[in-house]
């Protein structure tokens, strides 16, 4: 913190602050550099000796403006970019861990999508779908790629899920298999986050998901009675939005998933 009362002379303090701000900039710490220059500007304006030094004030203000421009450019810059085929192949290779060829192929395509390589991921998923490999997972990911790309295909593929106002399906009408749900948490420790779950069982309009003990913080957000607004439900033939309510929560007592949480979600009628 800059202080006039410090043992250093004002000139030394200013030089030191300039050095600090400049170093933060070279380190790419743009916000921190800007903060330091702003702090310095206030210090100069309050200083008896330097407050009339317009040249110094102008120089610091210029630095602040340059930084603000760079920060804006960074914030508006692309969050992702299209990579070369070689790097995409590397991603597929590095982030595939399954032993079976089919699961590995799906995993590779999922990895591409996760790194924002949607076009290449789509090619892979479409090829997998044509071969009948894990069709539910593959179809679900095709839809997600289109949604992430925000292309017109998303609207064509998802007639039940227009991006503005979604027409909800009545749960009683849909005797269809739901393979997965996406839940967006509006409160609690996961506020603002969307978490995907695979559906393990389904009985009528109640789906059951299993959450590992390691994900206790997620299970804690799903206590009986919790209302789940605007869930996305995935089925092999469509994706739709609905509300749900946690109707039951239990701990699995035996078997390989002993200790994990079994949570039932009843999908509501409108």
């Amino acid at each position, binding site marked *: 913190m800059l202080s006039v009362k410090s043992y250093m002379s004002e000139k030394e303090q200013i030089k*030191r602050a300039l*050095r*600090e701000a400049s*170093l*933060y900039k070279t*380190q*790419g*710490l*743009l916000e*921190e550099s800007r*903060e330091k220059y702003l702090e310095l500007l206030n210090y100069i304006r309050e200083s008896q000796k330097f407050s009339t030094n317009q040249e110094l004030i102008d120089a610091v203000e210029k630095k602040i403006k340059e930084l603000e421009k*760079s920060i804006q*450019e*960074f914030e508006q*810059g*692309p*969050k*992702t*970019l299209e*990579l070369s085929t070689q*790097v995409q192949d*590397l*991603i597929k290779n*590095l*982030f595939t*861990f*399954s032993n079976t060829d089919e699961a590995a192929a*799906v*995993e590779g395509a*999922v*990895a591409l*999508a*996760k*790194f924002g390589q949607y076009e290449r991921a789509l090619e892979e998923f479409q090829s997998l779908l044509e071969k009948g490999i894990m069709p539910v*997972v593959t179809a*679900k*990911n095709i839809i*997600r790629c289109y949604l992430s790309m925000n292309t017109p295909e998303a609207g064509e593929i998802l007639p039940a899920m227009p991006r503005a106002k979604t027409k909800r399906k009545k749960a009683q009408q849909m005797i269809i298999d739901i393979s*997965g749900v996406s839940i967006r948490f509006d409160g609690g420790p996961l506020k603002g986050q969307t978490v*995907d779950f*695979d559906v393990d069982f389904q009985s009528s309009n109640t789906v059951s998901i299993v959450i*590992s003990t*390691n*994900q206790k913080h997620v299970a804690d957000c799903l206590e009986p009675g919790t209302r789940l607004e605007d869930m996305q439900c995935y089925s092999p033939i469509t994706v739709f939005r609905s509300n749900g309510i946690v109707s039951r929560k239990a701990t699995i007592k035996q078997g390989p998933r002993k200790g994990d949480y079994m949570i039932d979600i009843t999908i509501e009628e409108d």
Partner: protein
Amino acid sequence: MGGQQPDRMAIFNAKNRIIECKLVYYGPGRGGKTTNLEYIFRAFNKHTSSEMVSINTQGDRTLFFDFLPMGLGKIRGCDVKIQLYTVPGQPKYKSTRKMVLKGVDGVVFVADSLEIQRKANIESLKDLAENLAQENKNIFKIPLVMQYNKRDLEEKGIPLMPVELMQRELNSKLKVPYYEASALKGSGVGATLKEALLVTLRHLQKELQWTK
């Protein structure tokens, strides 16, 4: 996307006596993770088997990850191959960090010694613990080495956190080995890597019994 992916561990090919493991450099944005790998690539070129892959966006910020494969040669009759990764440190790239952490065997946490990065270090360590938990891994159990980077900046009169403070804030509970470093100059980089490899391979030996 997709369902839960299988938990992957280091690959041990008993027939060909090859072990492959994955070391991830984690830490706040602009803390020096990529600079660590760049130094390793230059200084340990005998052990690097190919080019370092680095995918950056504007301002030299890591957008995806850096990747550097290394071969350590034979250790107790086993050919040991290491994959070094960095993650993007900016908070908004959480999903990429989670992806890169898949199948991790050991972690180097590169903490930034700059006083202004105090909060960012703590946030990043918390993020690491959360992401490891989602991988069914525990930050207290995974091989982990702490690196306090940018110590050279003290000479330039830049306010740094004392190592004692960093130890108290980041390592008092974890109690893992730590190194002071300047990734830019290379000091402490090799020592951090060696320690990370040591603790990781020791851990894998217990898990996989690969030296038997």
